[in-house]
């Protein structure tokens, strides 16, 4: 089937508004990651879901950021009260149950968020 799909591709929002970014992982992949890619900042880890385990939220930059993964598949990253510094490309990735030596992550095309 298709690879990792993210929507929307581009989002322009006003400062202070809430936004939701969606990720559809590859079917059967139990691990799902969110990263943020900013110019000059590289790839910043945000959150990691693995199966039914509690997510690793250690990378979320503030309590304005949250993420859910419903039914072990689709994930939504929510940013409340957006700020201009939230402008970035948000990348989602998924991988097979990575307990063995097969941790290849497949990335979506990203959502470019611009806060004006």
């Amino acid at each position: 089937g298709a690879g990792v799909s993210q929507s929307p591709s581009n989002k322009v929002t006003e400062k202070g508004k809430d936004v939701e970014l969606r990720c559809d992982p590859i079917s059967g992949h139990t691990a799902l990651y969110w990263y943020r890619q900013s110019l000059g900042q590289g790839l910043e880890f945000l959150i990691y879901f693995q199966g039914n385990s509690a997510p690793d939220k250690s990378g979320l930059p503030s309590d304005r950021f949250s993420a859910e993964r419903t039914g072990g598949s689709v994930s939504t990253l929510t940013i409340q009260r957006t700020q201009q510094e939230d402008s970035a490309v948000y990348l989602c990735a998924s991988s097979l149950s990575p307990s063995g030596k097969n941790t290849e992550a497949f990335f979506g095309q990203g959502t470019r968020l611009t806060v004006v």
Partner: protein
Amino acid sequence: AQRVTQPEKLLSVFKGAPVELKCNYSYSGSPELFWYVQYSRQRLQLLLRHISRESIKGFTADLNKGETSFHLKKPFAQEEDSAMYYCALAQHMEYGNKLVFGAGTILRVKS
């Protein structure tokens, strides 16, 4: 703490010159390391992994546990190699492996 360090933000070389993109890691266990690449307007994708000991597009990377390094090398750079390169480490957690990325290095190959 597990960490991946790519000391160069930008590496600029001439076509045909050798390339070495540096990556150092800190990890307490047995590391599993990768190089990912993002070409212009394309998705981030896996280039190679140390466990496969393969050469992809002329690139190789050897794990040096003594120096905790996993540098990416190519003997003769080509213009189409221009891209952003990320080194990544699989951090073994109780319920799976979490990928930790370095900050990335932009490779520019000049004609």
